[in-house]
């Protein structure tokens, strides 16, 4: 199968991580694997656009109505805006954290079993400058997979496991910044298999 070449500026950590995260989503959300759950994105979209709409309406109102008269409603608008944006920030910080992908699938084996997988990632930077003569340590892609299998709509837990793996970005990107997608997917597929089988 012909696949799209993914090429990034490999000096830019954000681009490297985004390329890997995108590949994670693409692989895991394949029809025979998991159904992606977009709750995190949807919550942020709802909070974000609600705050933007409130800001727009408040500004328009403040522009149309004379200042002294507009104060009570403008106060309300500004306070609502602050609440919504702080909720959004708190949500990303405490709930979403580094989550990249949340997926679910159902299996019929005697009873309905639900499998949930949560994947989060971050970039690990080398802790300190390399010692003289030692090889330069590259920044690394650190990925964590959490897996839960349950039945009776989540009431009884059947299996739970977590797998973490760290690899240097240099293993997936060449000097020109082209991504070795097959190698990345193979590594990730291995991790998924491991977490599903419940090896600690």
């Amino acid at each position, binding site marked *: 199968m012909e696949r*799209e070449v993914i090429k990034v500026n490999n000096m830019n950590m*954000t681009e490297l991580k*985004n390329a890997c995260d*995108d590949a994670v989503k693409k692989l895991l959300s394949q029809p025979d694997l998991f159904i992606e759950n*977009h709750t995190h*994105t*949807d919550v*942020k*979209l709802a909070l*974000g*656009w609600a*705050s*933007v709409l409130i*800001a*727009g309406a*408040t*500004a328009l109102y*403040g522009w149309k109505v004379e*200042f002294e008269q507009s*104060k009570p409603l*403008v*106060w309300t*608008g*500004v306070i609502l*805006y*602050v609440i919504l*944006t702080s909720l959004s920030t708190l949500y990303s910080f405490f709930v979403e954290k580094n989550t990249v992908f949340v997926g679910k699938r159902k299996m019929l084996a005697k009873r309905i079993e639900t499998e949930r997988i949560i994947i989060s990632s971050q970039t690990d930077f080398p802790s300190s400058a390399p010692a003289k003569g030692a090889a330069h340590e590259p920044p690394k892609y650190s990925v964590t997979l959490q897996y839960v299998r349950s039945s009776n709509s989540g009431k009884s837990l059947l299996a739970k496991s977590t797998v973490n793996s760290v690899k240097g970005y240099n293993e997936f990107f060449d000097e020109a910044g082209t991504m070795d997608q097959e190698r990345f997917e193979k590594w990730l597929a291995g991790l998924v298999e491991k977490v599903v089988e419940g090896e600690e």
Partner: protein
Amino acid sequence: MDSIKAFKRLGVRYMLLQALNFAAVIASGLMIWKGLGLVCNTESPIVVVLSGSMEPAFYRGDLLFLTNPASEQYVTGDITVYKVPGADIPIVHRVIETHDVVSEGYVAASPLGQKQLLLTKGDNNNANDIELYQGLDWLEKRHIVGKVRGFMPYIGYVTIAMNDFPQLKYALLGGLGLLALVQRE
């Protein structure tokens, strides 16, 4: 063109998210302005000097920070920004006369409830501002946008340049918008 491909690949949610990035920047700007206005109790907490009538104190393009606390009377020497009905631009001039009127049939419990008649003048002008009041004899509290509290030179020239050359404004806005849409955080 890479970004268009990315759009297709990532779908509606991704597009909404990118558009939100851009909209959120504008929204936060608007809300900071409005919030500052509420805290300072003035509709425009920051103004740019547009005329030379307060030279050499303020030149065209200087930035002025205003507040208008409800608990303070205006006194002579205050530099006020005022807008009288019928005039299209606010004027920055100094108060040279205050008259706290008590004869209007009642005496207010606090001096702040009193009617105050004000006369202003530009430091650089010889005559007072009566000619600018659009037929009014005195300025009153309700015409005052705020008192000048702080001063920063030159920075306001950006907005004057944007008013004089609208192309610059559109180029700047368009450029920022494009960047926000294309960039991922």
